[in-house]
């Protein structure tokens, strides 16, 4: 059962009905039962043991931290650090064993040679748990937050299991903080607004995924699978279309998840804030996959920057370089560790060497060049607050991002480099073919003029909604002000757009989300 299947929606609405009719103090138990049932329907059942293992490690660590023997006992403080480190390492190790080994071929080979037992485990073909990357990050965040005193350890192991395995977020996150999900244990009353807003958001997510993303996927996959035929300018279509595909896929799934949680009066944190409106790459990463960025900032970047080694590096830089360079050195070092961890979380060398290294380089270069660029814009008397300048900056950021995610489109690092080579060859290729943009050749990929029109109209609708979101925070803030017939007209149009133009049913596999693999 996937979050785009009709079975999921039947499950969701029956679940919500049971949830609101049950006694309030039992609501979290209903959510727990729904999460377990969902897990059994959506994933390989025995893999729930990995969620249980994560819960048990975090629970034990939390309880030991609260233990009277350790509290207020300075000598025992080291033990608390050891317990925290052990709980974090167990979770990383299990994740690495099941998710990382599929990509880290060298590491796996070394592991198998050194410890043959892992070879035997590999032969058992144990599959990873659903949403393993997301809940592992979440539980590590919980353990560290308990250690740092940000949250009080949960004393009920079943409640902690609900935090780990709350069913909507097991598909592609978001990576929530414990404090953000404490609402799971509170009483919730039925409210029509929650049902209306949740349903709206689910419908909008389905539109993004089934109408836009799955159509764009045909173009992207078609070109990359036959680069000998689709040469010249063809691969550049992928470069600029793929960011839209991944955005509508990932954010569409997030809309379904956030909407599903809202039906239960649970607010999950937002993962996107109109990333393509960003003026700089730095801003882009503050608007894209926000919960992963926040998690990495709070649990990796801050501790690393505050570590003795980095403080020393900062002092050394101050003694040897100008003020600006002295700041740049520890910043670049901290950023590299942050990007490395984010690449590592994605679980493959192509992410670390490709995506992370690329964006880290871009960020460092933009930091180096920004004073010069500021001077130039000052000299040219550019109004940096004008729409046209903002538009130019957003297009520039989109192009930089588009080139970076070429690595995302490949299955392996070598394949990613092949893609880069194909792009570079465009400029020397004898088949100079810019007319493919206008002569209808694109239909050879299996997309009709009708599909192209649907894509263009849908992207216009997406832009409109994103503009409203930028202005009001939520597009629904604007929608709620409109008169009832107009609102319902929009819902009906959207519903029929999904039913008529959605890529679903026999022959399509709309169930796969790009970020579902993590």
């Amino acid at each position, binding site marked *: 059962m996937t979050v785009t299947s009709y079975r999921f929606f039947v499950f969701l609405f029956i679940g919500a009905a049971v949830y609101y009719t049950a006694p309030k103090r039992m609501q979290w138990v209903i959510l727990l039962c729904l999460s377990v049932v969902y897990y059994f329907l959506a994933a390989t059942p025995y893999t729930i043991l990995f969620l249980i293992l994560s819960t048990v490690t975090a629970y034990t660590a939390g309880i030991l931290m609260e233990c009277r023997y350790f509290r207020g006992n300075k000598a025992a403080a080291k033990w608390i650090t050891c317990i925290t480190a052990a709980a974090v390492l167990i979770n990383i190790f299990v994740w690495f064993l099941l998710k990382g080994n599929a990509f880290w071929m060298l590491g796996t080979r070394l592991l198998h040679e050194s410890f043959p037992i892992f070879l035997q485990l590999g032969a058992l073909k144990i599959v990873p748990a659903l949403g393993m990357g997301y809940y592992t990050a979440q539980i590590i965040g919980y353990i560290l*937050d308990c250690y*740092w*005193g*940000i949250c009080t350890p949960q004393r009920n192991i079943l409640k902690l299991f609900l935090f780990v395995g709350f069913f909507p977020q097991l598909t592609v996150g978001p990576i929530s903080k414990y404090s953000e999900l404490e609402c799971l244990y509170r009483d919730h009353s039925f409210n029509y607004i929650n049902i209306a807003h949740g349903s709206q958001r689910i419908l909008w997510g389905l539109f993004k995924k089934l109408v836009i993303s799955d159509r764009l996927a045909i173009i992207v996959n078609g070109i990359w699978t036959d680069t000998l035929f689709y040469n010249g300018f063809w691969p550049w279509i992928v470069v600029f279309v793929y960011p839209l595909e991944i955005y509508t896929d990932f954010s569409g799934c997030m809309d379904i998840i956030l909407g599903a949680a809202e039906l239960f009066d649970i607010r999950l944190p937002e993962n996107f804030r109109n990333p393509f409106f960003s003026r700089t790459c730095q801003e882009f990463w503050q608007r894209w996959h926000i919960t992963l960025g926040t998690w990495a*900032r*709070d649990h990796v*970047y*801050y*501790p690393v*920057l*505050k570590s003795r080694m980095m*403080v020393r590096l*900062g002092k050394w830089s101050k003694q040897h370089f100008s*003020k600006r360079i002295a*700041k740049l050195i*520890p*910043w670049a070092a*901290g950023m590299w560790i942050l990007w490395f961890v984010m690449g590592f979380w994605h679980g493959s060398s192509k992410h670390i060497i490709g995506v992370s290294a690329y964006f880290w380089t871009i960020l460092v270069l933009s930091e180096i060049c920004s004073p010069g660029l500021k001077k130039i814009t000052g000299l040219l008397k550019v109004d940096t607050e004008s729409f046209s300048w903002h538009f130019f900056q957003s297009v520039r950021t989109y192009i930089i991002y588009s080139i970076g995610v070429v690595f995302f489109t490949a299955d392996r690092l070598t394949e990613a480099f092949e893609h880069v080579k194909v792009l570079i060859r465009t400029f020397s290729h004898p088949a100079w073919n810019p007319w493919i943009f206008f002569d209808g050749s694109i239909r050879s990929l299996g997309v009709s003029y009708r599909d192209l029109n649907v894509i263009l109209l849908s992207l216009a609708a997406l832009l409109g909604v994103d503009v409203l979101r930028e202005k009001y925070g939520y597009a629904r803030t604007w929608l709620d002000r409109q008169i009832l017939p107009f609102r319902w007209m929009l819902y009906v149009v959207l519903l029929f757009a999904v039913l008529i133009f959605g890529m679903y049913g026999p022959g399509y596999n709309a169930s796969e989300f790009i970020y579902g693999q993590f």
Partner: protein
Amino acid sequence: MTREEVYERLNKVFREVFDDDSIIVQDSTTSDDIEDWDSFEHINLVVAVENEFSFKIPMGKVVTMKNVGEMADIILELGK
């Protein structure tokens, strides 16, 4: 140490870290009010505050402090 004394020293630290002598911080000052106050400068600021007041600010406080008022509260609490 009074809150006024804390603010006097905090102003000095902020001016040094952000290289801007016109900065005057108050309880409600946040990262939105100072242009260069990003996540990197946040840690620089914390380290500078630690050096100024000669104590370590726990990681939990570093992550959760939302404005200068909370920073001053932490300093007063740790400086007791």
